[in-house]
């Protein structure tokens, strides 16, 4: 037995590599068979393709298991294993290393994709037989890409040229912690999950079955991926907050943005798709959104993996960028051609080959002409600003021409008006959903431009300019507020049409609540440490900077009152639901006993037993509630208190409501490090609330760079986030502390739990006919219990983890000393220019260059220099790139002008839509019946049938 194992172990690098090749071959086979099945429509071929898909899944699973085996047996001949693990790592972190580095994370991605494929093919079963072949083919195409990528460029089984090493390098300590074990798989689950709805969309396009079928089919998959994107992002925030030790959770890093962008498009999609389901509108838009979501998941990976954009998460630079670029290009061409080919169906025009050819040719001619035209404009010797303006105008005009003229003319002579579905009224949920799509896409566009700005600025000015968090904070806040507003108001409108009366009634209570919230905030807020208006620094000098500053100063009160508005809206919705059910007499189906168990089980049971469309609707409101809670947490950021102090043992320090008492320092030693703890008691209003032990770990291997261990206490109102800077044993254990009081952070995590619960309600499987009430109730209770337990686990683990496993998470070494608010403001506006700290600001970077730069600035402050003067000098010394926010002059203005122009264009497009719809207002879509003067309704045989079908619709 042992010898067999040895023989196998010896050949594992070759064997693993061959498995990847095998996966490639089998995926190709399945791809071909699936296409054949699609072309012939024969169930036999389809069945073969299904088996092939399962086979691919099995082989990929085998490959992952081989890599896991290599990790567990410490096979350091394999480069990836040697690079990301060592002999001392515990088992669970050996598994973490599977996705800790570039090559492995690609295999992990492929593995998750396979898992999705297996689940999806299984779920499809004998339904959607027409769509299935193309769904399988699309997914296999994606598998093929990853196989090619790994086999030719990033093979996780590649061996070291120099042979096996005695020991590996070990996983980056930052990655060796609890959150790193669960956050990437979670996020990847979301990322990879976007492939499935995309495959459904491609299948719908390929078969021309563009009715509601594919949307219904992909609904749960979309929601699932969306949920995991949200949860993955939140867990990423938790990781940054717990481990990176700078007191915040979101740094607008390219990797974070890359994960956030698909979430935005997916959110837009789950809303707009409801309109298509109901009205048959927005077919092109939905296909575009879902393709964009998938594109962004790959694009984000490309951005951060190719090394084109600096990020704290940077993977080593490699050649995979080219592969990604080619894949993305193919993806865009493929999706565009497919959409153009199906243009007639998508626009509800009777299809014909002539139209298809015209659409594809015209579309591509326009795209290519634009490309050529824009490139030639680019080559002109004009000032940058001119070139950008011309390009923007030409591109905008081209899109306009494409949409408005060419396709209009092509369909000339066809009576579109009667065929194409229309909106009923502006005061309807449909329209607010469009507004919400517009806001989400605006936010996306902004983040996209800012994230890719290093590339844009390099192309424009030959200067790679990085965009720091202050820029995002200033610009994204207004958009976030807009979204929050739309989220609330959208809920208050009904489908189809809202009577002015009903609208007035719907708005009354929430508006009153909002008004009360504003007043309460202004009056009570300052007393409890949450003032309504908080002034920050302007990111630009000049009117734009001033406007942003004024708006953002009011963010706390606006944000808080809008949160109150949203909560009021949601509560009102549920009150209306229960009132309607009570008057209809359906509420009795919920066992009374459940209500006595504290209300929540009864509530959940009611939600889960609603007919599916209503359940999705009210589950959506629960999701909204989660997002509102998260927004409350984000608003809390405005009131952060950051202090720095030095204390002798026994001394106390008062910050806000909290009194910190430094008890003393103690040292513990283990095998590979010395740990110096500072014991601090946290009192609030004289009562002991928590005992914190921030620490410095001094590893034997690197005695010169002690690592910093954060300690924090979570409360409902604030988090006390404590970092110890230095402990000086020669001076009676004098210790320097950084104290961050971060209000309301816990609400973010809590909101995420509510979000999960809401998504589960939306995805809850329809209870089968014949299933007994008891069983349905049991499932409801089980689901509630599961989500609550999951939530509590999520919420409780950070605290428990911080207390029990401090040794597992050496965070950044060194600390940043910031003495006063002026320093904070200046450091926050400048980047560390040492060349190796990619995106760090002087306010967070701990390297020695940053320390020197800070000392220089302190010196300047001491001699009385002003903020603007110091910033100007720093910029003069290091160049534009040294600023956290790109300057507001010349071509650098592109960074905000482009998104603002895009948002404006979106608003214009929306207004045009609005006008067009308005001209049809009052007609219920296609006017099928000529409507004469009011005729009394006459019941006929069809009425009875209609009533029957209506009754059966939701059951």
């Amino acid at each position: 037995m042992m010898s067999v194992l040895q023989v196998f172990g010896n050949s594992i690098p070759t064997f693993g590599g061959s498995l990847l090749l095998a996966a490639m071959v089998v995926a190709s086979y399945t791809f071909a068979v699936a296409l054949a099945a699609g072309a012939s429509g024969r169930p036999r071929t389809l069945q073969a393709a299904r088996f092939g898909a399962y086979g691919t899944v099995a082989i990929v699973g085998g490959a992952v298991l081989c890599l896991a085996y290599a990790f567990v047996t410490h096979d350091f001949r394999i480069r990836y294993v040697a690079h990301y693990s060592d002999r001392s790592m515990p088992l669970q972190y050996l598994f973490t290393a599977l996705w800790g580095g570039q090559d492995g994370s690609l295999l992990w991605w492929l593995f998750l994709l396979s898992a999705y494929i297996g689940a999806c093919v299984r779920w499809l079963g004998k339904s959607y037989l027409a769509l299935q072949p193309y769904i399988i083919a699309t997914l296999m195409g994606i598998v093929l890409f990853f196989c090619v990528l790994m086999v030719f460029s990033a093979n996780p089984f590649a061996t070291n040229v120099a042979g096996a090493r005695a020991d590996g390098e070990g996983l980056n300590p930052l990655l060796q912690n609890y959150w790193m074990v669960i956050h990437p798989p979670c996020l990847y689950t979301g990322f990879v999950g976007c492939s499935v709805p995309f495959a459904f969309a491609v299948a719908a396009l390929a078969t021309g079955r563009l009715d509601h079928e594919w949307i219904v089919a992909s609904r749960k998959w979309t929601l699932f991926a969306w949920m995991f994107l949200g949860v993955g992002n939140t867990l990423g925030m938790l990781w940054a907050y717990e481990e990176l030790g700078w007191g915040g959770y979101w740094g607008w890093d390219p990797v974070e943005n890359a994960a956030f962008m698909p979430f935005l498009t997916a959110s837009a999609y789950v809303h707009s798709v409801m309109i298509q389901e109901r009205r048959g509108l927005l077919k092109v838009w939905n296909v575009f959104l879902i393709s964009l979501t998938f594109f962004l998941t790959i694009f984000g990976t490309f951005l951060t993996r190719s090394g084109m954009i600096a990020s704290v998460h940077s993977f080593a630079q490699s050649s995979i960028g080219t592969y990604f670029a080619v894949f993305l290009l193919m993806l865009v061409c493929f999706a565009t051609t497919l959409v153009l080919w199906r243009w007639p169906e998508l626009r509800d025009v009777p299809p014909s080959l002539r139209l298809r050819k015209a659409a594809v040719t015209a579309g591509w001619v326009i795209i290519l002409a634009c490309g050529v035209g824009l490139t030639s404009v680019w080559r002109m010797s004009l000032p940058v600003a001119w070139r950008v303006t011309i390009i923007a105008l030409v591109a905008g005009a081209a899109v306009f021409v494409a949409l408005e003229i060419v396709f209009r003319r092509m369909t000339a002579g066809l009576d579109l008006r009667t065929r194409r579905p229309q909106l009923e009224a502006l005061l309807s949920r449909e329209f607010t959903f469009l507004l919400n799509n517009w806001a989400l896409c605006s936010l996306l566009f902004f983040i996209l431009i800012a994230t890719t700005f290093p590339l844009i600025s390099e192309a424009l000015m030959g200067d790679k300019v990085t965009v720091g968090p202050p820029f995002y904070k200033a610009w994204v806040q207004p958009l976030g507020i807009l979204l929050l507003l739309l989220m609330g108001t959208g809920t208050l409108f009904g489908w189809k049409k809202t009577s002015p009366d009903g609208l007035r009634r719907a708005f009354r209570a929430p508006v009153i609540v909002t008004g009360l919230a504003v007043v309460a905030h202004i009056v009570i807020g300052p007393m409890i440490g949450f003032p309504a208006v908080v002034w920050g620094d302007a990111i630009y000098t000049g009117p734009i900077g001033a406007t942003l500053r004024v708006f953002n100063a009011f963010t706390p009160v606006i944000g808080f009152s809008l949160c109150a508005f949203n909560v009021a809206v949601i509560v009102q919705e549920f009150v209306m639901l229960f009132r309607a059910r009570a008057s209809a007499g359906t509420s009795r189906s919920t066992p009374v006993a459940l209500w006595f168990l504290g209300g929540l089980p009864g509530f959940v049971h009611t939600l889960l037993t609603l007919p599916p469309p209503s359940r999705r609707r009210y589950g959506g409101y629960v999701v909204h509630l989660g997002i509102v809670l998260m927004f409350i947490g984000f608003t809390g950021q405005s009131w952060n208190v950051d202090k720095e102090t030095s204390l002798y043992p026994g001394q106390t320090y008062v910050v806000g409501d909290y009194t910190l008492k430094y008890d003393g320092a103690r040292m513990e030693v283990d095998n590979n490090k010395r740990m110096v703890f500072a014991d601090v008691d946290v009192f609030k209003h004289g009562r002991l609330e928590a005992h914190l032990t921030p620490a410095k770990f001094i590893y034997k291997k690197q005695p010169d760079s002690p690592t910093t261990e954060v300690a924090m206490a979570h409360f409902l109102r604030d988090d006390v986030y404590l970092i110890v800077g230095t402990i000086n044993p020669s001076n009676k254990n004098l210790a320097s502390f950084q104290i961050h009081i971060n209000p309301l952070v816990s609400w973010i995590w809590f909101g995420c739990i509510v979000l999960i619960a809401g998504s589960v309600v939306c995805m809850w499987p329809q209870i089968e006919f014949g299933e007994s009430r008891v069983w349905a109730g049991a499932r409801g209770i089980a689901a509630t219990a599961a989500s609550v337990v999951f939530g509590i686990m999520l919420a409780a683990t950070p605290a428990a983890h911080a207390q029990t496993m401090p040794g597992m998470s050496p965070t950044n070494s060194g600390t940043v000393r910031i003495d006063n608010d002026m320093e904070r403001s200046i450091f926050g506006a400048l980047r560390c220019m040492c060349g190796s700290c990619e995106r760090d600001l002087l306010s967070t970077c701990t390297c020695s260059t940053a320390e020197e730069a800070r000392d220089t600035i302190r010196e300047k402050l001491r001699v009385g220099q002003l903020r603007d003067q110091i910033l100007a000098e720093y910029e003069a010394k290091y160049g534009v790139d040294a600023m956290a926010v790109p300057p507001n002059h010349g071509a650098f203005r592109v960074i905000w002008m482009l998104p603002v122009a895009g948002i404006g264009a979106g608003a214009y497009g929306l207004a045009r839509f609005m006008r067009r719809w308005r001209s049809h207002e009052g007609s219920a879509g296609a006017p099928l019946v000529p409507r004469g003067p009011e005729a009394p309704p006459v019941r006929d045989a069809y009425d009875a049938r209609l009533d029957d079908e209506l009754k059966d619709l939701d059951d």
Partner: protein
Amino acid sequence: MTEAKKSATPAEPRHDEDDERLHDDLEAERRLGRIVAVGLPVATLAAAVIVGVVASVPSALLVLASGALLGAIALLWASVRTLSGDAPLPEDLEILAAQSHDVDDLAEQKRRILRALKDIENERAIGRIGEADYEEMARRYRDDAKVVMKRMDEREAPAMAEAERLARAYVDKRTAAPPRVEAPQGAVALPSGRRTCLSCGVSNEPDAAFCKKCGAALARSEGTDATV
């Protein structure tokens, strides 16, 4: 072993019990497939757990990996056999495939209108639209729905009449003649488009010219896709 039996069958004489045996073979293969589909993962997991406890984690991983590869082999075998037409399909797959239809514009319109009616009903229930607005919109949508339903009825009328005629003819025949339905020529066209050989009763592909089992000629019969 099933393989050997399969290759032997075409040479054997055509008998009824042979037909039954073939049916049993197919049934046995389906059963085998089901057993492997459930058994292999379960056996692999169980073996991995046992090995993991008794020996070590690496060995357990190896067991899992070999299980995955065995599964891959079984699946590819199934895939190729299905493709070549040797393996049986799940019972109702062909029927379901034959039933799948193209996008139905009218049905889609009707669905949307019904959805709209339901939506406004819900909105009225929670007081979002007033009674007058509801009445007006509901009437409009109901009128639209009726138009669509009428159109659907008109569209389906010929098919319904044809079905009626066929059913009547069948009933008449059964009451008049002995209860055996004879197709005019050598093959009966199933609704799925598949053709049943009249000599041996085996179901053949829709485009088959000769029976795959007995080799008898399957003559073209008209009305392959009679809608019943």
